[in-house]
C-alpha cells in the first residue's frame, strides 16, 4: 500500500469504523477500540498533506458538548454517533460554502460575505437558521460597537470565561455583563438551550 493519505487508511483521517470500498455498508467495530485522539484532526501545524475537504473535522469534544446540550439532560450519546456528527459537520460546512461561493462568483465577487452564507442556507433548506443567525449577528455587532466606546477593550481572549452557574439561569439584557467589577459590553453565550424541536433559539445572558 502506498503511503498517501487516501481513504484506505481510515485511522489517519480520523474516520470511525472500517469502510468497505464499493459496498453500501459500513462495518461496525465489535469493540470500542478507537482512540479518542485519532478523531481530533491535527492542529494544522503538523502534516501538510493534501487533505480533501471532508478530511478536516472540528474537534470532537466541542461537537460532543453541543450535542449533549441539545438533547434532554438524561440523554446519552453513543461514541460512534459523536464521530458521525463530527463528519456531518464538515460536510455541512462544505455544502454551505460551495453554494455561497457559487453565488459569489455569479456576482463577480471574490470574497464570500455574510449575505452569501445566509442566502446559501435559505437555498439549501436551512432557512430556519436564517433569522436566529441575523439576530446573533445584530447582537454581535452591538457588542462590538460598545467595545469601541470604552476605548477598544478586546472582546477576545480572557473575557467571558468565568461563567458561573448564575449566568445560565436568567436572561440578562443581551450583551452586558460585569467582569472584574467593570461593566463591559461583552457577549456571553450560554450553552443551555431551550428545547425546541428541530430549531434552537439563541439565548443570551
Amino acid at each position, binding site marked *: 500500500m502506498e503511503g498517501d493519505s487516501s481513504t484506505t487508511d481510515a485511522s489517519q483521517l480520523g474516520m470511525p469504523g472500517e469502510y468497505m470500498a464499493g459496498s453500501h455498508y459500513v462495518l461496525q467495530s465489535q469493540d470500542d477500540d478507537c482512540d479518542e485522539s485519532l478523531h481530533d484532526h491535527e492542529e494544522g501545524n503538523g502534516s501538510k498533506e493534501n487533505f480533501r475537504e471532508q478530511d478536516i473535522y472540528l474537534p470532537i469534544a466541542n461537537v460532543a458538548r453541543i*450535542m449533549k446540550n441539545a438533547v434532554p439532560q438524561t440523554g446519552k450519546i453513543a461514541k460512534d454517533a459523536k464521530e458521525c456528527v463530527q*463528519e456531518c459537520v464538515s460536510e455541512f460546512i462544505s455544502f454551505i460554502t460551495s453554494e455561497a461561493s457559487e453565488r459569489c462568483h455569479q456576482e463577480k465577487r471574490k470574497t464570500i460575505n455574510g449575505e452569501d452564507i*445566509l442566502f446559501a442556507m435559505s437555498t439549501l433548506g*436551512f432557512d430556519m437558521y436564517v433569522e436566529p443567525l441575523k439576530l446573533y449577528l445584530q447582537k454581535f455587532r452591538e457588542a462590538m460597537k460598545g467595545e469601541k466606546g470604552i476605548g477598544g477593550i478586546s472582546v477576545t481572549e480572557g473575557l467571558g470565561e468565568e461563567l458561573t452557574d448564575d449566568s445560565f439561569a436568567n436572561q440578562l439584557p443581551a450583551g452586558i455583563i460585569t467582569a472584574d467589577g467593570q461593566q463591559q459590553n461583552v*457577549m456571553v*453565550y450560554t450553552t443551555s438551550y431551550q428545547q425546541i424541536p428541530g430549531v434552537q433559539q439563541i439565548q443570551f445572558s
Partner: protein
Amino acid sequence: MSGNNGEEKVNHASNSKGISLPMTRVKLIMKSSPDVSSINQEALLLTTKATELFVQHLALSSFNNGSGKDQTLLYSDLANTVEEKETFQFLTDILPKKILVRDYLKLLEENPIEEADN
C-alpha cells in the same frame, strides 16, 4: 493529553464571541472547498454559528426520532433521520447504514461478488 490543551485555548477565544467551535478550524474546512478565494469575517462568524445550530438540530432530531428506549442517541438514529428528513439528505452518502462483520460475511456467502482490492 497535550492535544487537549490546544483545544482549550481555542475554545476560550471562541466562547467570548458566543460560539463554542473553533473558527480557525471552520475556516480551514471552508477554504478546502474548490474555488473559494476569500471569506470575510462576517461570513466565517455566521458559518460557525450556523454549524452550531446544525449540530443541535441534527442531534435533537435524531434523538427524538430514535427508539427512545434507553435515551441514547445511536449512529442508527442519525442514519435513519438523514434518510427520512429532506433537510439532511445531503448527508446520505457519508452515513451508510452499518452492518456487523459477521452479517456482511453471511451476505457475501449468499451473494458472492468480486472482492475489491483493499
